[in-house]
């Protein structure tokens, strides 16, 4: 009998602790599958952050380092600079990356650090119970914006992908979501492209995943998916903001040339 579906060895098999309907699990699986399919699970070091995914090091089956809140890009810098031939990624949420870790993410991108950053944007602080995030939408009710986020009082959401795409050091910036098969497939393509951008040595690669948080949004999983499509995507449009013209074929050629010891032209 043909096997049509199996657990990926990119994950340890430890059951996820994420809430029902949360899309962390999908993102984890896509990243893990991509590492296995690309044959880099044994040569990759991931950096977990602080937030709901604080213990993603227990799930990803590659070497993992747990970083302080917001500092994952700095930790990843330290790893990548010492392990230049290995693949390094961070996995960060919106509080971690867009609030406390703003300096670290901007400067890692500006330096063109050859790392991949996977950014989970669910517009809310999850683990600490639903506070307003830098990416919380205007009008969105959270435990610290109980009357809805008011621009005159709490300012505006940060569009991180657009922000980082303005930096020369950022080679590839894309925003995806995981609401249906098509988008999930697109998300996986983005992950693989990000890894390849790193392998080709082009610079900083960033994928933002619009994600759901049914628990803190107070919605059923399917309603959360609808809310993401109706409310989040207008604020955070999907698409490639940097490096769209870099084709996978071109990346493969660069990686092959690099392996053969040739100089890569960025």
């Amino acid at each position, binding site marked *: 009998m043909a096997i049509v579906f199996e657990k990926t060895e990119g994950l340890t098999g430890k059951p996820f602790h994420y809430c029902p309907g949360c899309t962390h699990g999908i993102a984890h699986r896509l990243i893990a599958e991509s590492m296995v399919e690309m044959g880099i699970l044994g040569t990759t070091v991931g950096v977990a952050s602080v937030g709901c995914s604080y213990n993603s090091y227990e799930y990803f089956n590659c070497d993992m380092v747990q970083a302080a809140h917001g500092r994952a890009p700095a930790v990843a810098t*330290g790893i990548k600079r*010492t392990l230049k031939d290995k693949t390094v990624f961070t996995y960060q949420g919106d509080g971690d990356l867009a609030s406390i870790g703003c300096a*670290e993410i901007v400067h890692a991108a500006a330096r063109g650090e050859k790392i991949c950053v996977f950014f989970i944007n669910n517009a809310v602080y999850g683990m600490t119970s639903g506070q307003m995030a830098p990416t919380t939408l205007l009008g969105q009710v959270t435990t610290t914006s109980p009357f809805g986020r008011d621009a005159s009082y709490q300012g505006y959401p940060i569009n991180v992908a657009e922000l980082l795409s303005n930096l020369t050091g950022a080679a590839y910036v894309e925003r995806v979501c995981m609401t249906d098969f098509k988008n999930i497939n697109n998300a996986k393509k983005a992950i693989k492209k990000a890894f390849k951008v790193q392998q080709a040595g082009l610079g900083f690669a960033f994928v933002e995943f619009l994600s759901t948080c049914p628990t803190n949004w107070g919605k059923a999983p399917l309603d959360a998916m609808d809310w993401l499509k109706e409310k989040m995507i207008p604020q955070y449009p999907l698409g490639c903001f940097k490096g769209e013209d870099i084709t996978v074929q071109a990346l493969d050629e660069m990686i092959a040339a690099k392996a053969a010891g040739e100089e890569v032209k960025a």
Partner: protein
Amino acid sequence: MAQKRLLMKGNEVIAEAAIRAGCRNYFGYPITPQTEVMHYMAKKMVQIGGNFVQAESELAAINMVYGAASAGFRAMTSSSSPGISLKQEGISYIAGAELPAVVVNIVRAGPGLGGILPAQGDYFQATKGGGHGDYRNIVIAPASVQELYELTVEAFNLADKYRNLVMILGDGTLGQMMEPVAFRDEEPIVTYEKPWATNGRGYNDDGSYKREHNTITSIYIDPDVLEVKNNELQAKYELIRQNEVRYEAIGLEDAEIVITAFSTCSRISRNVIRQAAELGIKVGMIRPITLWPFPTQAIADAAAMPNVKAFLDVELNAGQMIEDVKLAVNGAKPVYFHGRLGGNLPTQKEILDKIVAIHEGGKV
């Protein structure tokens, strides 16, 4: 063979020593009075194929050290007091994750932005923790440029040996001054296996993985697991207390007054001992070289000697190490204090006057 003595700046010697100790990873952020460490590294690391990153902040710098140390490499950062305050988050995480790292603090006067001149006001911060949680850093206080060299090399060995952060605690005097230094032909580098490093699982020829995945972390949500982890840390610290106390004792055998002083203050005090002898007052000194672990026993032993009548603690602060001195003396003898603040150094005369006053009446 001993090499020729070269005139070099303390900060540059720290950088050179780190490179000689095999450190190829420096991450820093500029701050007076330690910036020459960075300048030296910025040039040398590029020349020898190492890593130098000018980080966006001290927070980022210490976390880059965390990353490089996780990958199994010798790594360091340097800063001065306000910058070290910012690094405390990372220092606590390094303690929790048990990573070997070297951090240099060329102390300046505080609190707050304070001033840029020498001080020892970070003694508490360095020796009592600084960041959150129950942990200890090995804290080394060199007193000369030659010692900056030798003890910085040693710091990397100790860091690897115990998977612990080692702090070099200097001050603006030591960092900025030039003094002769003689480099060894070969450094006593001890190499430790790091099977715990997160440097990739690796592949065997058949495509299987060389090992299970490694994890570097400081989070243990289960209280029982965290308690075990903490007890392991405490056992390690006890081992360090037993093995690594270093100090210099001078003239205790007939001393009436024993000075306790580290680093810059010990240099000035050393000359006071000579001046006091000219006045017929016998003064000795215990100079802690490791501030943690602290030479408690050596001080307790001195306090038990019949010839020792009193202690004089000299510091560039309002009285910090004196608390550890008093704990060691444990009431056996009086402990007096002389300190200067704000970036000023005590003169030999000030200390000598204090000695004379103690000697004449025990009232200061």
